[in-house]
């Protein structure tokens, strides 16, 4: 059974279409990075998955309909909506007591142990904690829940780089066990490149790209092309071209590596570069028919 399965998921707010027929399938045990520009529908998609908003189309999360069965689903699903949703008036000890009180799968010892490694005082109120500490507290609460799906919507927004690094380290080392599924959305794309197992781009309410990370590394190559080989490189139909410090950097999809090596320095692109190529091609002038090939077997 897939962890999440959506078919023609649609959601409109008035005349604004936030989700325009999303098809999505996430298997258990994956860490999916859901990337998209502002207003692309990321949060709407996550809210639908979490049973926070009604939707049209079909959606099953761990076999349940989230809108109908949110309460029961939340026994198996945890989420951090963004850094600032812990109530500011609550004390750390009260937050632990409350979650322990209502959640059948909360392990208090785990939460205490995690907090023990931070400088957070039990008697502090959330409003007295720094933003990074609030994120640590929320993570401690969530990681102590034995959930099958964890949804993170911009979990590190506004945190400094140390906290951000620590956040993902904790997640991978102390939480992820290859049976749990994690979905994360973020604008700090580069930080999750080595965290995620699957990648998906969403734009204007549609999934416009999706692959797993092994595929990603095999398929895409970025070449800093030597000036004299530029014409030859362009002949290989790059999906994107950009200029950095006067050098041309071309992004190729499924090109022959040996051929590329002759053109210049080859490396795996960053997610951000691929994102710009895919989304940029989408919204800007279409580049020579490369776009449709991207989406084969991904959408619809």
């Amino acid at each position: 059974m897939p962890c999440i399965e959506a078919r023609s998921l649609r959601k409109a707010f008035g005349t604004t279409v936030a989700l325009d027929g999303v098809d999505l399938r996430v298997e258990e045990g994956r860490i999916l990075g859901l990337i998209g520009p502002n207003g692309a529908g990321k949060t709407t998609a996550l809210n639908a998955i979490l049973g926070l908003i009604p939707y049209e189309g079909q959606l099953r999360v761990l076999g349940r309909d989230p809108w109908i069965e949110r309460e029961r689903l939340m026994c198996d699903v945890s989420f951090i909506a963004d850094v600032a949703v812990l109530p500011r008036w609550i004390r750390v000890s009260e937050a632990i007591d409350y979650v322990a009180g209502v959640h059948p799968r909360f392990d208090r010892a785990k939460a205490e142990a995690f907090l023990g490694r931070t400088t957070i005082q039990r008697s502090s109120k959330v409003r007295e904690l720094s933003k990074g500490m609030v994120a640590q507290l929320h993570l401690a609460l969530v990681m102590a829940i034995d959930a099958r799906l964890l949804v993170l919507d911009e979990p590190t927004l506004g945190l400094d780089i140390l906290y951000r690094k620590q956040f993902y380290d904790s997640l991978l080392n102390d939480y992820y066990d290859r049976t749990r599924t994690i979905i994360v959305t973020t604008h700090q794309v580069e930080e999750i490149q080595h965290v995620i197992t699957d990648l998906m781009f969403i734009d204007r309410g549609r999934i416009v790209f999706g692959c797993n990370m092994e595929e990603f590394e095999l398929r895409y190559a970025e070449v800093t092309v030597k000036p004299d080989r530029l014409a030859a490189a362009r002949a290989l139909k790059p999906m994107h071209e950009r200029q950095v410090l006067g050098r041309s950097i071309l992004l190729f999809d499924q090109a022959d590596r040996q051929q590329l090596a002759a053109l210049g320095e080859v490396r795996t692109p960053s997610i951000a570069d691929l994102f710009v190529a895919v989304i940029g091609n989408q919204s800007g002038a279409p580049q020579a028919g490369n776009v449709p090939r991207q989406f084969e077997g991904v959408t619809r």
Partner: protein
Amino acid sequence: MTTLSQTGNGPFEPQPAPAAALAPTRPFYWSVRRELFEYRSIYLAPLAIGGVVLLGFLFVLVRLPRTLQTAMAMEPLAHRHAVAQPFDVAASLIMMAAFIVSIFYSLDCLYGERRDRSILFWKSLPVSDLTTVLAKACVLLLVLQVLSFAITLVVETIMLLLSSAVVAGSGFSVADYWNRLELYQTLWGLAYHLVTVHMLWYAPLYCWLLLVSAWSRRTPFLWAVLPPFAVVIFEKIAFHTSYFLNFLIYRFSGGQEATGTANANMLDPDMHMTPGPFLLTSGLWLGLVFAAVFLLVAARLRRQRSPL
């Protein structure tokens, strides 16, 4: 539909999920607890008023021997009134504090969690919207009333001990003082009033405020107050009638007619505590039906409303 017995596939065999089964009342209990974490004024405000009452009572104590002296000459009812008045005032003030708290609490509790976005945290836990709304209603209809009674009981016990010491010290009979005071009457009258008026008769009022709190996107207080006010004005201008206004007055004060406390000090020992007619009032049961409907609508709204 889902069952826990999915077909296993490869390494993703469903875990046996040995979730320590929680009693179904636990989320409710903890939802009530969290209201007390959040709104400390629920118990702090009546406690503070209780403290102020005790402080003020010290001045009453100074005058107590003279009051008793003059009361001796009065007829029994006036005598009772003279000695018991501070106790009645104490009970009324604490009840008033609890009432004011409940107005503010009911208007804020479902609005505030959306305003500060903490609703996203509450909704990330396996607690249903109905459980949450019922917990808030329980705070209003039960916790606040029980608290207000308990605080009154403690405050008045202290008052009784202090005044008894003064009475004995100034040569009067403590037994006679207690007899005149009839404190159990005050407390019994208070309990009766809290249950009939605040718990039962005002239930639709509190639940209406909860609904407004769940519904409004801003200024729930105005949304709770202005529309009824507008209806009253409209009716007056358009039809020259005041049915709605009379209905509101009946809702706010009419409960006392039904509870047999009309035109009398609600804590007067001679008031008629006649639950029979009260229980037969259609207004009571209609009100409770409306209260239930308001709660269901509030729960539905909470499910659909997103953070502000």
